[in-house]
């Protein structure tokens, strides 16, 4: 691992402890509502009610923050949602 990467990893770790990161899911015109609900249940462990709430938020408002926490975990969730073809990214908590 290069020094530059090591430094970056240290600053990333420090940042991730101090600043929670959010996982955001954006709306798209292709994915079925039932599919998005199921994905939230499978990947984020939501029960049906909570999954449906976030799905409707994505559908009606264009986006939903589905998770918040440490950066490394946020990245993992975002990538998992992308595996399921949901448009997802991470951002720092405001």
């Amino acid at each position, binding site marked *: 691992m290069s020094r530059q990467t090591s430094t970056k990893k240290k600053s990333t770790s420090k940042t991730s402890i101090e600043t929670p990161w959010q996982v955001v899911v954006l709306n798209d*015109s*292709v994915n*079925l509502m039932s*599919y998005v609900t*199921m994905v939230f249940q499978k990947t984020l462990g939501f029960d*049906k009610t909570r999954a449906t709430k976030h799905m409707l938020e994505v559908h009606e408002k264009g986006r939903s923050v589905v998770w918040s926490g440490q950066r490394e975990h946020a*990245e993992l969730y975002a990538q998992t949602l992308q595996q*399921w*073809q949901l448009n997802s*990214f991470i951002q720092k908590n405001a």
Partner: protein
Amino acid sequence: MPNIFFKIDPSLLPILIEYIYFVSCQFEENLAIDIQFPDNDPELSESWKQSLLADLQYDSQNLLSLMSDESFGQTPVTLEISFAEAISRACSAIRHKLRYDFLKKINDNDLESGDMDLTKLPNDLIKPYTCFVFLASLQEAVVESIEAELDFSK
């Protein structure tokens, strides 16, 4: 295990498989959706992309193997849960590619309705639209089965 039954006109299958195979080949290098990588680190972004591509290729191969089975569309199919999940992801991915590569001329509302009159579509849109709608139906059936398993396991 998820159990789905799909009845399909056998004459339609080659057309559907043709489009699904064509789109799947693009997954050698291209993702189905636009991805925002978490960093401006090119190495991390490339590694992230390659991981997603590998999953995408795996999922689409599973869909093709399902649809290439001679009993598909004629008899009920019992799917192992992880296979069912792969099928549902593949349906989403291929529908995204169909939407943005072939069906750009159709607006979102008409596409979401899923009941456009095929006789009124331009010739070049009939087959990809049929594939798009078919995959939505297949995905709905698979999702219903997966959800039943989720409810059962609680």
